[in-house]
């Protein structure tokens, strides 16, 4: 009894090791420092500000779309970006950009969250739906093709829908909520898969600079746990249900591994990203040539872009078109073909890593 008492007193009485005034309320996941809430908010926001400044993610006067799914990452991103924009006079025009895949019981609910965020943060919201763009909702697609490979469609369509929505908003850049854990996982996965081309670019903070609308990841160095913590303490309104069509409730091997690493050495996540940045990959490595899709004009390394191939399959009643190993039509086809159920090395199969 006595021992317990003194223990709780000690823990309760410890002061924040940053301000040395208030009582420590949490152990910061990134550094394991015991700090108070206020200091946590400050270091969390300040680190993101530094990342934005050092990497020159935004220029004054730019219009920025925040990819908003209603989940924790994008909600915190929207909140923090609007906060920093005000505080540090970025003079950015911020927008929320959401994609409505048409998944009843999942996206309709999460979009409600985004609509509330629109009002809470005062950011204009644009919703682009698969139905409008492609004539199909995910519900309809799943009805045709079943639960196998559905994530392929969703991922390919979303990637393009985001660009379409961004050009409707006439923004200069898209900011996405990828966090440090996501990027560390991607580095590992690309090693495990032997994908040297992706390994070389998966750690860049800004991608697609040669394309029409570049994307950036202000949370590149922000730990997932800290994002959750921030959302929790700030009582941010976010949606935390998994997609009903992504039956992968389990965590992938790689994600699990990263969580284990974080437990014994929090710095490991940053170290993986650092390794990813420093790998000696010769720049002369052949990269696929970028062209434009003959049908829709979207960037594509093939004659037609992946979305058009998939869409054609759907419309012609051949949903398997563009999926699997059919190398003839689309060389890229095999990459998305594997959607085995069961254990997997990766955690997010539904393409949120591309979002």
């Amino acid at each position, binding site marked *: 009894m006595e021992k317990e008492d003194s223990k709780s007193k000690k823990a309760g009485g410890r002061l924040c090791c940053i301000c040395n005034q208030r009582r420590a309320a949490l152990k910061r996941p990134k550094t394991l420092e015991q700090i108070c809430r206020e200091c946590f908010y400050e270091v969390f926001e300040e680190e993101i500000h530094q990342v934005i400044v050092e990497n020159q993610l935004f220029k004054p006067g730019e219009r920025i779309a925040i990819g908003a799914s209603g989940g924790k990452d994008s909600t915190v991103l929207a909140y923090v970006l609007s906060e920093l924009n005000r505080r540090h006079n970025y003079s950015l025009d911020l927008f929320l950009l959401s994609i409505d895949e048409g998944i009843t019981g999942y996206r309709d609910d999460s979009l409600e969250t985004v609509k509330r965020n629109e009002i809470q943060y005062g950011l204009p919201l644009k919703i682009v739906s698969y139905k409008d763009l492609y004539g199909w909702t995910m519900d309809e697609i799943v009805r045709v093709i079943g639960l196998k490979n559905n994530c392929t469609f969703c991922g390919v369509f979303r990637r393009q829908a985001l660009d379409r929505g961004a050009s409707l908003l006439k923004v200069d850049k898209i900011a996405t909520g990828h966090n440090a854990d996501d990027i560390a996982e991607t580095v590992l996965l690309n*090693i495990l898969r032997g994908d040297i081309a992706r390994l070389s670019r998966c750690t860049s903070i800004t991608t697609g600079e040669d394309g029409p609308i570049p994307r950036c990841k202000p949370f590149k160095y922000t730990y997932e746990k800290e994002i959750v913590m921030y959302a929790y303490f700030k009582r941010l309104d976010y949606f935390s249900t998994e997609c009903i069509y992504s039956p992968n409730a389990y965590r992938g*091997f790689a994600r699990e591994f990263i969580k284990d690493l974080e437990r014994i050495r929090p710095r490991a996540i940053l170290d*993986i990203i650092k390794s990813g940045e420093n790998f000696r990959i010769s720049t002369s490595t052949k990269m696929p040539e970028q062209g434009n899709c003959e049908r829709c004009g979207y960037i594509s390394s093939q004659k037609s872009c992946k979305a058009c191939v998939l869409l054609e399959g759907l419309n012609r009643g051949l949903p398997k078109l563009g999926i699997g190993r059919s190398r003839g039509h689309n060389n890229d086809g095999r990459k998305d073909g594997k959607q085995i159920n069961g254990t997997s090395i990766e955690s997010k199969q539904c393409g949120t890593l591309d979002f």
Partner: protein
Amino acid sequence: MACNSSSCQSGCFRNEVEREQHSNPPTETRSDSNEPNLCVKCKANEPMCGAGEDGKFCLDCFRSNLYGKFRLAVTSNALITPADNVLVAFSGGPSSRVALQFVHEMQQRSQKNFDASKDRSLRVFGVGVVYVDESTYYSVPSCEIDKAIQDMKLTVSDLAPPAKELHIVPIESVFSLESSDGRERLKKLLDSVSDPTGREDLLLHLRMLALQKFASENGYNRLVLGLCTSRIACHVISATVKGQGYSLSADIQYADARWEIPVVLPLRDCLAKELNMLCQLDGLKTVEFLNKPHSGINGLVSSFVKLLQQENPSRECTIVRTAGKLTPFHFNKIPELNDSSVPLASRRRQKRFNLKPSESISSESFCPLCYSPLNKSDLTSLNGQESSENSNIFGAACCSSCRFQIFPKDHSSMEHFCSLLPGPVVARAKHGDSNGNFSLLRKQIQDCLLSDSEDET
């Protein structure tokens, strides 16, 4: 999202799809053909049973396939040439046991050729075996150590002639002190490292130092390590996790000549499973109890890779192949033989098939502690630090990974830590890279110098 690239040749995607599709058919096809299963290579003998993926070979073909991988690695990268004197690092485990066996077989063959040839122009390379005794650090009863060493000595002496000797090198020999003082200092040094992973890695560096020291003092010019694909795959992941992405490609090539005695990895393309099986099949005796389980990050990584390998049997190969695509360093090849004292025939034997043209030779600087090449960002952070004390200079010259996991956090213990390090390590930091280059230059003009010591010339 599995194989996200059309350039991925790992076959991991194909395997899984095929497994899915053909989960039933194989039994049918087997029952269709009434002929017994035959080895896929020689099509004469029955394949080995119960060997999984390797079950497609018969014993002889499995053996020659494995030896073939070793031989190809050796010949195409000039890892061992007739003029060499090779030191095999032998731990008693299956990998180094096979390395020893294969090096021995190769030596036997060249001995046969030597005896048969008329002009005897090609020398037979020499082979020595070394065991690094780490019992100072791992508390193992001395009787067990003695028995293990006895067993290993027997293994080495049982090899057919040319006779080889097993040298026992205590790891504390890196300190060049009396054995008891050295032991004391090693313990103190390792105890001062608080991170278990850091301690393990430091021990690894010390082991390499001990091997280098022994090889150099005893006239060897190659150091053979038994690192196999599986171990290298683990190293790829753990180096990534420790933030050593830049230097990674230096460690995983067939040859690594950044050391005074070039280190070669002829078993780079063999899986641990294959090596284990060969030991079993050929009755190669291994000493198992000395295999210490990894702890910390290294332990986590090896169980992760094991899990992945179970999920897909080609995963380890894919990992090593990915890392193999990273650009190697200029020292990742055996230096050309220019020495006129080596017979021309031997020099000609140093053939290289698939060596890429050497890139512009950059003068790398190395971390004095783990000897990994430093990249620019490490160097700039180094220059930014103002330091006056010796220990600070040393700390600043090291890579960020060593600084984090091996160095003590506070300055006062840093001084103490540096005083415990082996002399050569500290000297490396003081002289920096220039010393290495200088002695390299000196070697080239050695024959024209009249004095042996550097000061007088």
